[in-house]
């Protein structure tokens, strides 16, 4: 249950812009919300949809308890279409369904809203299909595309949407809040740099699996530094059994990336930015092993590996290649 006031606190700029466009009755036909995880894109999209459909709103504020608002919350509103990736990507069929939906008149009113979550994960075919009706919107249609990486969207789609950048939440603030919730300081730092979402961070903190991730990353670094010959063995025996799902591997790589960021931070003496505060000694050793340039190169390798995982390359192969690259 969010209100515009709360939303504006979270995202001052984007919230204000949407509120104004609503008040002045200048709702655009398509919006592209871009921002990191946990920056409130979904909440904002839901709130905006409620403002559009709610019949008892005051100003821009939806009432939150009428039939329309309730049904938007439960996903049962017949004129609000919610598209989420089906498996790895948003398929052509999903967009086709949407397209069909929009050639029909609305079920209750003629106002229609569609929200596409993770819009960057549309296949090329799907994007091109979507383009067709982004281009020729019927009058009372509003599209909201949500994405974490606006740059990977087709230019042709970007150019047809009003872009709204969601600012990353202040990591410091999240960190402080986590500490208030009783998370240890070193963990709070790590969690805050992985996610902006407070509840998610707290869940991860409770999770034994995640505690092991941190341990494994540090072990991997150890192996890379001191026993270069055992790198591949370590990957096969310790690393892979722990990371079974794609999302889990991504998480692991995120943490690995933080390590190399720390190495660079160490070089440039940005002590307060360092995430692995308890591992000072190891970091010092690491600066002996990796120069500033090679640490930067390592970051690139990790990013590439992340991308490959998304592209369905076999995780084992990706990790093996990555270890070889990092040892170089």
């Amino acid at each position, binding site marked *: 249950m969010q209100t515009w006031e709360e939303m504006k606190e979270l995202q001052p700029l984007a919230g204000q812009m949407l509120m104004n466009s609503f008040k002045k009755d200048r709702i655009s036909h398509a919006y592209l919300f871009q921002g990191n995880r946990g920056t409130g894109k979904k909440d904002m999209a839901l709130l905006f949809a409620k403002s559009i459909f709610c019949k008892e709103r005051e100003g821009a504020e939806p009432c939150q308890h009428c039939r329309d608002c309730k049904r938007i919350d439960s996903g049962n509103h017949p004129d609000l279409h919610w598209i989420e990736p089906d498996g790895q990507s948003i398929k052509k069929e999903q967009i*086709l369904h949407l397209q069909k939906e929009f*050639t*029909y*008149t609305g*079920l209750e009113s003629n106002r229609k809203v569609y929200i596409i979550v993770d819009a960057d994960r549309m296949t090329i075919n799907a994007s091109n299909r979507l383009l067709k009706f982004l281009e020729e919107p019927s009058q009372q249609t509003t599209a909201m595309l949500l994405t974490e990486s606006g740059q990977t969207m087709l230019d042709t789609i970007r150019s047809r949407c009003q872009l709204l950048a969601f600012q990353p939440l202040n990591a410091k603030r999240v960190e402080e809040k986590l500490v208030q919730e009783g998370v240890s300081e070193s963990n709070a730092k790590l969690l805050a740099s992985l996610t902006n979402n407070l509840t998610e961070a707290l869940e991860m903190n409770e999770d034994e699996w995640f505690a092991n991730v941190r341990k494994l990353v540090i072990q991997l670094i150890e192996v890379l530094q001191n026993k270069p010959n055992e790198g591949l063995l370590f990957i096969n025996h310790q690393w892979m059994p722990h990371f079974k799902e794609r999302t889990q591997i991504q998480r692991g790589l995120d943490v690995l990336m933080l390590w190399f960021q720390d190495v660079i931070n160490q070089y440039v003496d940005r002590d307060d930015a360092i995430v692995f505060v308890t591992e000072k000694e190891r970091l010092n050793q690491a600066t002996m092993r990796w120069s500033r340039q090679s640490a930067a190169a390592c970051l690139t390798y990790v990013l590439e590996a992340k991308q490959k995982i998304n592209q369905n390359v076999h995780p084992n192969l990706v990790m093996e290649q990555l270890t070889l690259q990092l040892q170089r």
Partner: protein
Amino acid sequence: MKFIIQRDQLIESVQNVMKAISSRTTIPILTGMKIEASEEGIKLTGSDSDISIESFIPQEEDGIVYVEHIEPGSIVLQAKYFPDIVRKLPQKTVEIESDNNRNVTIRSGNAEFHLNGQDPEEYPQLPQLHTEDSFELPIDLLKNLIRQTVFAVSTSETRPILTGVHVKMEDGELEFIATDSHRLASRKIPLEQPEGKALPSVVIPGKSLTELNKILDDSEDTIEVSVTENQVLFRTKHLYFLSRLLDGNYPETSRLIPEQSKTIVKIDAKELLQSVDRASLLAKENRNNVVRLITKENNHLEITGNSPEVGNVVEEVLASDVDGEDLKISFSAKYMMDALKAVDYDQVKVEFTGAMRPFLIRPVDDDQILQLILPVRTY
């Protein structure tokens, strides 16, 4: 909510309503069936958002009491289980009761089911249609209108508006038009227009009409048709069928129909249909199912199908009358057969305007049915 109902009545209604419910829907609540009890009777609603069907069971009809002990209320039940439960209940009467926590109890004889219901507030609100803007026509006529046009709607989604049937009312005539841009089917019937009210012309999705055609029984009862901004309602005595409309402007089709013709062929529809069918046998897969028609002397027509890899077929048919210029024309056998089946008269008149222009098929002495087909260019 509480009521006791005759099982047979309930089964029939449930079966009708189930036709609208699809298990593959993006809106979770639509997997359910809405049950509404009021003093007048019980109303069941099912929907897949494109079409919605409401079935009404009156409290009593012709002195026969169907529903007793009604306490008004409403609930949404899982459509996956409810129909089977009702069908297999042991006794002639069924008691259905729901409490404030949306727990539903279905009782019949010694059997007792407890189902978890869903909030009826979550269910889409169907528009309350005004009965003033409506017209009535016999069910069998409506079924004919649908049958004679709906086959010609487009199946491709590239021009979505063509997947519907254009229904308009003009000068005391009701007209159904469907086209997929290669052929066109149209049927008019005279209809008394309600005084001073012009019904808006609408485009009804072909799929909805096909579905409606399946649900309606052939009978001479009347059906009432009402149109609103975004839905159309077909209403028989106890069955309401609602469909969403297609959004957009239907292309202007009246200009497509040629006014003069150069060659007019009058022929027995069945004979032509059968010979085209035979000629198409060899040309089925490739070549778009094309057959060729050539006018010969003495009112003879030659119909040929040719497929170089397979072979060819030639057949001569005797027409009752061939008037005008000689002609060689090729067309899709499927379209021709569909059109001839839809015309549904013994004698038809085929009007050609040259090999590259569309041609018309009409009954000899009935102007209300019209089928138009575009020829195929061959070399």
